[in-house]
């Protein structure tokens, strides 16, 4: 959508880049399925970041070339991946030792809703009859040092995803540290949701209008 002054909201690539810029050299990072995976494409020159995938690989590399896919080398989203030089494999209990034991520095996840207290809802819409599936999400939010969320600021129907209180079933309470949307970067603080940065051309008022939670300028 076009914003004021004919400026645009951040593209998906820019959102992913915003996240990538905040991940320091030498970090161990777990990327959720979907938009979070794009973060790996924007690691700034000179930084070495190691990707963990909970199905047993530390040192996940990019997609393989066509024809070089190995059905026994996949990521948590069950996509074909590669392994970098210096990678290693391990079993699931060891993999979640890394997660639950606070060894992973950053996890980037998608969200259905995030609350101003950092509550996250991202595993089920809770519709009756639908098959619930949680995967590793609850372990990740409970164990990774920094939980970053990357998400559109509103749903396709224009409803706010950054809310006062999550209506959807929670993945974890008070777990999100920072939110990267197409409109802003928001920090979850004890004082509430602080606007760290806004997409070029958007005003605080316009941002607040698209947000159910109360925003604050630092």
């Amino acid at each position, binding site marked *: 959508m076009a914003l004021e002054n004919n400026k645009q909201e951040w593209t998906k690539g820019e959102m992913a880049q915003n996240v990538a810029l905040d991940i320091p050299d030498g970090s161990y990072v777990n990327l959720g399925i979907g938009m979070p995976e794009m973060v790996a494409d924007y690691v700034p020159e000179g930084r070495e970041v190691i990707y963990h995938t909970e199905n047993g690989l530390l040192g996940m590399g990019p997609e393989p070339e066509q024809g070089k896919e190995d059905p026994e080398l996949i990521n948590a989203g069950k996509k074909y991946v590669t392994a970098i030089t210096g990678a290693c494999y391990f079993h699931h209990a060891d993999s979640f030792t890394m997660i639950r034991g606070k060894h992973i520095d950053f996890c980037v996840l998608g969200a259905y809703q995030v609350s101003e207290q950092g509550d996250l809802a991202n595993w089920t819409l809770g519709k009756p009859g639908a098959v619930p599936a949680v*995967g590793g999400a609850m372990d990740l939010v409970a164990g990774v040092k920094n939980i970053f969320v990357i998400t559109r600021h509103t749903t396709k129907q224009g409803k706010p995803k950054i809310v006062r209180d999550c209506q959807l079933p929670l993945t974890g309470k008070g777990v999100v540290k920072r939110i990267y949307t197409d409109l802003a970067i928001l920090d979850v603080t004890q004082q509430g949701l602080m606007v760290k940065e806004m997409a070029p051309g958007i005003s605080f008022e316009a941002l607040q209008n698209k947000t159910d939670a109360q925003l604050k300028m630092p």
Partner: protein
Amino acid sequence: MINKLVPSLSEAVKDVKDGSVVMLSGFGQAGSPIELIHALIDQGASDLTVVSNNTGSGHVGLASLIEHRRVKKMICSFPRTTHSTVFPELYSNGEIELELVPQGTLAERIRAGGAGIPAFYTPASVDTPLEEGKERRTFNGRSYVLEYGIEADFSFVKCEGADRYGNLVYNKTARNFGPIMCTAAENTVVQTKKMVDLGDLDPEAVVTPGIFVNRIVEINQPLDESQLIAENWRYPWH
């Protein structure tokens, strides 16, 4: 003399009983012991409780076992994937039970079962709907839930190489739940891509020590699940 190799798939799965608890290795297709699962379908045991991360895809492997109405209950973390239709349909109709467990909790419960740990505390699922019915306890100011070890009657595991003692190595991310499931069952049944001579596996690089393995069957060229699904195969074949 110790020789855990058995001559056939049917021999390997012969004593699974109605009502058995069966763990199946694999994360999606990777590491799924598809030949053992098909042998289990042929063997006929039903009312099974199956512990596996997913619920199978298409109409082969675990999905086929479920489709044959052999599974009373699934214990898993992620019961749907791109090509899974069998489980969701039965589940929506209330024809199969589901115990949904966060993936790390599932892994730790299996490890605990194998390690003689009856129960442990974990932070995963606290303050979520999956905390329901669990005992909560605070340690150092943080909340945790009590989770119980899982033990199985059988574990079916796929690996890359095995020797007659049952020492195993795996391939890449097909390792996943295999090593911990080997520890948690009364009978661990393994399908290996190759049998190797004793001494061929580096003692420093053995992933599953033979003590955790009861039977091995050699399947040199296991089926490729995604290919079967793409070609719309169903087990038994037609």
